[in-house]
């Protein structure tokens, strides 16, 4: 009896180990045929039409499917893409791109300059439905804005031929700009500028299903199970198909962060976290020990800050704003609360944005804008209260959107303000869109905010705080600031431009403390140790196209 029990048990164990071996053989996937990259998108991409995409989920999928005139390396340096070379006129107003002749669409058609002209004019088409939300990324092009905006625009241009993009022949694309734009080349690798196959003309819903999507990038779409998963396979017509080692890219859509982490730990995913997924904050400390070789923390071009309502008492007073900003111990905030290796922010433009020679922050350190300390904060508060003729501060509310991380930051700050300034700040949590509505209509005292770069230049931060900007949610209006931004727009010399933008940033923060910078974001993500050549760029977007498994 006892013997048979032992036999049974060993049989079960043997069977189990065979099964386990089968499983791991499948997972290991280092053979040439089984090079699968898998990551979590969290949710369904709203679109796979480059003209309509505007979110990191759609962008992540589009990165595999399409290729623009240029590509970018890890540091944001421009590499040739579909264009193998380009000429820039002396006045920096005309760009001539020379396209490679071996680029093909996934259906075998050649990729031509006409495809780019068509795609860009489609983005700007005033009658494109739904309208391209990111059309303004192309407003650098001559007459683009006046062609795109029809309603209530006396300068509307109805003739698309006047828009400054033109295919001179099949492989030469000429682009004329409104103003010299030193970062224009970096725009040509932006998703909105990807080419679109001309078959899109006949089917407006072409980008909603896998079978009608024709793409020109390293991969083509094999399946799109809505809300569930997307699979990409190599595009055999891609001009550099030899560089592509992956046999499949698999995107899942799992909304729960701890599920995503467990899927990574058990090998269902070989990439987790930023930009489309999330590593739970409370797990980061543990992962630094258990997954030391797989956890990566990369600084990205985004800033976490608080808005002051510059139009409403008490924050219409510069010294009271300064008091709140100086009372924050940012190092403690990133070490004890956010824990994701973030860098304390004393300015608005994050460190990964390029300047004239080095990074912009190396050229213009943000510590020059402020030196936080309890004493300085108290002094500023006393001065501010005196200027306002107040004995003490009225009740202040800090408005944030629902999110555990935001809540923890808010509580830490409320605590610092209580201890240093002796003020009670009430934290109010709002649902995301309710919050945005209140923020844009200046219905708050202090509110949370985050801003990420659209292109690798300080301007992507600086010009959002001009008086006319639709994203200026703080009621900050400064004529000098607006003038500096305008001057920078018209300046070609990089050094001079940077200087102008730095002066603007100093007005915004050093002089006025119109916002309260807290930290520069990092992209926390996990990459399996056998997965190589995964590149996260300065924006925090991931390029998996040249990845391979070892």
């Amino acid at each position, binding site marked *: 009896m006892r013997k048979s029990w032992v036999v049974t048990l060993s049989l079960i164990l043997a069977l189990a180990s065979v099964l386990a071996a089968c499983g791991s053989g499948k997972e290991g996937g280092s053979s040439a045929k089984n090079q699968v990259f898998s990551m979590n998108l969290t949710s369904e991409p709203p679109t796979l039409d480059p003209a309509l995409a505007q979110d990191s989920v759609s962008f992540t999928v589009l990165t595999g499917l399409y290729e623009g005139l240029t590509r970018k390396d890890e540091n944001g340096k421009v590499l040739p893409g579909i264009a193998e070379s380009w000429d820039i006129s002396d006045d920096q107003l005309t760009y001539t791109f020379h396209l490679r002749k071996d680029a093909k669409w996934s259906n075998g058609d050649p990729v031509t300059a006409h495809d780019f002209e068509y795609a860009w004019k489609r983005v700007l088409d005033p009658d494109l439905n*739904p*309208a391209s939300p990111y059309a303004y990324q192309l407003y650098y092009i001559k007459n683009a804005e006046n062609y795109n905006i029809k309603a209530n625009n006396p300068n509307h241009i109805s003739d698309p031929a006047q828009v400054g993009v033109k295919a001179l022949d099949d492989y030469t694309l000429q682009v004329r700009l409104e103003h010299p734009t030193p970062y224009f080349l970096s725009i040509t690798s932006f998703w909105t500028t990807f080419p679109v196959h001309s078959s899109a003309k006949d089917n407006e819903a072409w980008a909603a299903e896998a079978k009608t999507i024709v793409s020109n990038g390293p991969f083509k779409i094999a399946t799109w199970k*809505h*809300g569930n998963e997307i699979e990409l396979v190599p595009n055999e017509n891609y001009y550099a198909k030899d560089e592509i080692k992956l046999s499949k890219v698999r995107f*899942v859509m799992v909304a729960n962060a*701890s599920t995503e982490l*467990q899927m990574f730990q058990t090998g*269902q995913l070989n990439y987790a976290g930023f930009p489309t997924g999330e590593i739970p904050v409370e797990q980061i400390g543990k992962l630094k020990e258990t997954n030391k070789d797989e956890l990566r923390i990369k600084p990205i071009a985004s800033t976490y800050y608080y808005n002051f309502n510059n139009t409403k008492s008490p924050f219409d007073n510069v010294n009271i704003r300064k008091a709140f900003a100086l009372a924050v111990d940012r190092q403690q905030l990133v070490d004890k609360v956010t824990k994701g290796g973030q860098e304390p922010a004393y300015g608005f433009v994050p460190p990964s944005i390029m300047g004239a020679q080095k990074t912009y922050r190396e050229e213009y350190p943000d510590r020059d804008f402020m030196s936080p300390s309890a004493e300085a904060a108290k002094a500023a508060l006393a001065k501010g209260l005196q200027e306002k003729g107040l004995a003490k501060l009225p009740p202040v509310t800090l408005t944030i959107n629902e999110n555990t991380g935001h809540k923890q930051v808010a509580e830490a700050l409320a605590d610092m303000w209580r201890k240093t300034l002796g003020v009670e700040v009430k934290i109010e949590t709002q649902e995301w*869109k309710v919050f*945005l509505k209140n923020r844009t209509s200046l219905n708050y005292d202090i509110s949370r905010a985050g801003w990420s770069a659209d292109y690798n230049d300080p301007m992507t931060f600086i010009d959002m705080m001009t008086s006319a900007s639709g994203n200026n949610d703080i009621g900050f209006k400064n004529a000098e600031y607006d003038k500096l931004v305008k001057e920078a727009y018209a300046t070609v010399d990089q050094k001079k431009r940077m200087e102008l933008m730095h002066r603007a940033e100093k007005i915004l923060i050093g002089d006025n403390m119109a916002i309260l910078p807290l930290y520069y974001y990092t992209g926390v993500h996990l990459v399996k140790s056998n997965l190589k050549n995964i590149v996260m760029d300065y924006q925090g977007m991931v390029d998996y196209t040249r990845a391979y498994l070892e």
Partner: protein
Amino acid sequence: MTRYWIGKIVSVAVSLFVLATATFFLMKAIPGDPFTQEKAVPEEIRQKLLAYYGLDKPVWQQYLAYLNNLLHFDLGMSMKSNYQTVAGIISDSFGYSFRLGVVAIAVSIIVGVAVGILAAMHHRKLIDSVSMVLAVLGVSVPNFVLASLMQYVFGYKLRWLQVAGLNGPLDYVMPVIALSALPIAYIARLTRSSMLEALSAEYIKTARAKGLSKRAIVLRHAVRNGILPVVTYAGPMAANIVTGSVIVEQIFGIPGLGQYFVASVSNRDYTLIMGITLFYAIVLMAARLITDIVYGLVDPRIRLRSGKGAAS
């Protein structure tokens, strides 16, 4: 019978109309719209988007337009997922919720009733106490705790099952247990108490006096009465499970309808909010109708034609 069905259809139509109206205006009252986002879209582009989706018109006009589409069985297009129809999204995602739900319902009813009958037959013995303790656990442990625990133990620690996804039959195990734990516990307790009641009734004594075996008594006589409360409970429960549990779906990464419902509200995807709400309502009403019919089958005293009492 015909009168019953006419009454039923009229009441369903009226309920749907009231629900659609209330949801529409409540939804419009929430601040924000599908195009409210961190990086504000330039005002001119925003106006074009609003116009494309008909959101630039006064709310009452939007409402009439929506009702008109609804009369033509057109739920419209999603405002978040470009060129995806609401009907398509619902049918895709409901497929997952439905398959999972049907298994969970079957497991709940079969296991729940079986445990309840066993417990009643062994009243105040070990089986009874153990199953009732388990039932209390089942009712009181929230399903997300159970789901996360199973996921950690069987998915992560032991690696017996996949952590997430709904691809193979094994992937059903954990979500089904998470979904059916509470209904099993509830049904077991319901069955047990009504069985106990039934077992002490006069007609059982008669049956026993006739010399029928205990098994025959229980299966043929007591169960019929014993499961009546289960039928009452099973209707709404089935509707609830089939339409998808948001939390269980999220934990196991199942692309079901529940997730879309939550996402549609936070995205202000108006057409999808309306579509899913109406769909939920129809499923719920259908479940109640089926409950009524099953009621009549189990207990001939309750007849559909006997009046509106049973229908309410």
